[in-house]
């Protein structure tokens, strides 16, 4: 995030003298993020006390997060490999962002809604969705490959920030039905510049909808660094302008991500409305396989972030806490390998696609025009097969 050192010299120092805590200023201060990003773990995984009172998640949950992160990263690597083999049309990796991918999801119940972007393949499989179904979109077989309603997981969203409003709407809808489920919208740092993010935050606040906006601030929108994206002191300072409670978190500290996510979920369930979380993280790979990250960032920057690896940090912490040992770690890695191997194998089989499916689900019932077009394609296909 950027700090703004050369602000104007309009009267400000004196302004503070006038401050006697108006109701607005009080309300604002309850919404603003803590001075520094929340973290429980330092870069080596040692426990630190910078959590501003957020409760540490139970160790079982942390252990589960570790497992999911290891499996998730292995899945992600497998996807990159599949892309190189031409098995996926495109793949946006989340390598390095596993604390958010997993921490976001593990804080949810099955009846909560989730709104992933193109980058959230790991979050989706973490939710339990079949990896092959998850990859339908990126393989190019269809758009969304899983049952979005059953999983309460919207299709991976490409038009940036648009999904954040859907999250506000579904969160309000569920609340109106008397449910205490929440809706989690993933969004990137760059996408916070879109007008839709603004409208989503505002609608969520006005309707006190239990929506959580989890900004994975990985410092770049494709090639554009954050300081060309915003001059905000930090993205979490955007919440106060809507009356949305906001927090910054070390996005490579899985304990911190989970802790704040759990608080945000609780905040929503309790009827207090939306919550904005800015998580500082980094994508170790390029934007997608089609991108060349060397064009816009230094290798040294990537190296810096390698030393903040979320999996290593959580692993170290769990070991220190006695919740992980070599045997268990090996077990988890074996699970990850098996997961990847199964995926590899299943992705080798090209599914048989029916071109006539193109006309399905445009409407519940095809219009006469669509039926005619379908018939035309059917005739062409028949002619080809002769």
């Amino acid at each position, binding site marked *: 995030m950027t700090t703004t050192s050369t602000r104007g010299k309009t009267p400000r120092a004196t302004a503070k003298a006038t401050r006697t805590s108006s109701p607005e200023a009080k309300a604002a201060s309850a919404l603003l993020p803590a001075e520094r990003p929340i973290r429980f773990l330092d870069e080596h995984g040692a426990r630190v006390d910078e959590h501003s009172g957020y409760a540490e998640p139970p160790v079982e949950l942390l252990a589960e997060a570790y497992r999911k992160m290891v499996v998730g990263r292995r899945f992600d690597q497998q996807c990159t490999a599949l892309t190189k083999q031409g098995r996926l049309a495109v793949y946006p990796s989340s390598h390095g962002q596993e604390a958010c991918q997993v921490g976001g999801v593990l804080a949810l119940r099955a009846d909560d*809604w989730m709104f992933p972007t193109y980058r959230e393949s790991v979050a989706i499989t973490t939710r339990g969705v079949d990896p092959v179904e998850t990859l339908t979109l990126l393989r190019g077989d*269809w*758009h*969304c490959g899983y*049952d*979005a*309603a*059953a999983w309460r997981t*919207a*299709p991976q969203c490409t*038009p940036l920030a*648009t999904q*954040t*409003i*859907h*999250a*506000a*709407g*579904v*969160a*309000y*809808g*569920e609340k*109106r*039905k008397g449910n205490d489920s929440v*809706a989690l919208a993933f969004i990137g740092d760059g996408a916070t510049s879109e*007008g*839709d993010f*603004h*409208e*989503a935050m*505002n*609608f969520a606040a*006005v*309707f006190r909808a239990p929506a959580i906006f989890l900004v994975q601030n990985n410092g770049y929108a494709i090639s554009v660094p954050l300081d060309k994206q915003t001059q905000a002191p930090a993205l979490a300072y955007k919440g106060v302008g809507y009356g949305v409670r906001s927090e910054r978190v070390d996005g490579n500290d899985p304990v911190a991500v989970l802790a704040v996510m759990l608080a945000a979920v609780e905040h929503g369930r309790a009827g207090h409305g939306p919550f904005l979380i800015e998580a500082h993280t980094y994508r170790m790979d390029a934007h997608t396989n089609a991108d060349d990250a060397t064009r816009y960032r230094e290798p040294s920057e990537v190296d810096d972030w390698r030393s903040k690896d979320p999996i290593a940090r959580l692993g170290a912490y769990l070991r220190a806490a006695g919740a992980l040992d070599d045997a268990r770690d090996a077990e988890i890695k074996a699970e990850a390998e098996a997961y990847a191997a199964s995926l590899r194998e299943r992705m080798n089989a090209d599914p048989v696609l029916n071109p006539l499916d193109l006309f*399905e*689900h*445009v*409407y*519940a019932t095809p*219009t*006469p*025009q669509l039926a005619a077009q379908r018939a035309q394609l059917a005739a062409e296909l028949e002619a080809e097969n002769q």
Partner: protein
Amino acid sequence: MSTTMAQAINTALRDALKDDDRVVVFGEDVGTLGGVFRITDGLTRDFGEDRCFDTPLAESGIMGFAIGMAMAGFRPVVELQFDAFAYPAFEQILSHVAKLRNRTRGALSLPIVIRVPFAGGIGGVEHHCDSSEAYYAHTPGLKVVTPATVADAYSLLREAINDPDPVVFLEPKKLYWSKDEVSLPAQTAPFGKAEVRREGTDVTLLSYGPSVPVALAAAEAAVEDGWSVEVVDLRTINPYDDATVDASVRKTGRCVVVTEASGFAGVGAEMAARVQERCFHSLAAPVLRVAGYDIPYPPPKLEHHHLPGVDRVLDTIARLQWDDVPMGSGAS
């Protein structure tokens, strides 16, 4: 009973709110105020703020919120206050509303109605009178409906709300205060069925929404000129009723398309293209179009020059090669 189109729409909303708990009405000023055209008058009072409510002033937000509520099982009926103020919602409409069923193979459907007071003829200043139907009609996944009669306004809106798919419901502003002898509830033909509003034998005027009354007036005036003019009202632009149109044109052998929207690449182009594709050998003359000019919507004092009127329709009918003189290149 004499009923206005505004009343018919209000009643349709009421009846839908009554019949189906999942229906919610929202948008800018639709609550306390009852809408700037008073179409939602009394709904909040009678059904409560939960069923009909004001939103923040943000059309993309309204649209996206409707998508979310539909995902939660509601049937949102949103009002976008004027045609041009729907534009901020285009990304949500084009990239999500129109596509979500298809993208999710039917797992998620969006039974949303997008009500848009549209088109001109009311002396509105700029940005208040756009004819925006082509943008919607060209977008697969949307249904596009525009009533020309009071009974249709009621019946088509009820059908739109019951439809499992997103419907853009375009309300011709200038017809809000038009009256018909109708008692509600009224039941007219379903989506995808055009109506012959007036029978004739010489030429078919093909039209929809705000232009239907113009076509009817022209047909009436044409009697004096000795032409027997048939008027077809599409009612729903998508789905499109080729059968009724074809039957009329095959009978009359001539066709003029009348739309208020700018002609270039508009819905009228589709109508003309379809007619000649399907009825070529029945046509004694090219299908001509009477449309708004290809200009930004004019200021109030000049709009009548822009809007297709009876004279322009009659002039165009007169150009339908009644003497079978081939057209020169000077045409349109």
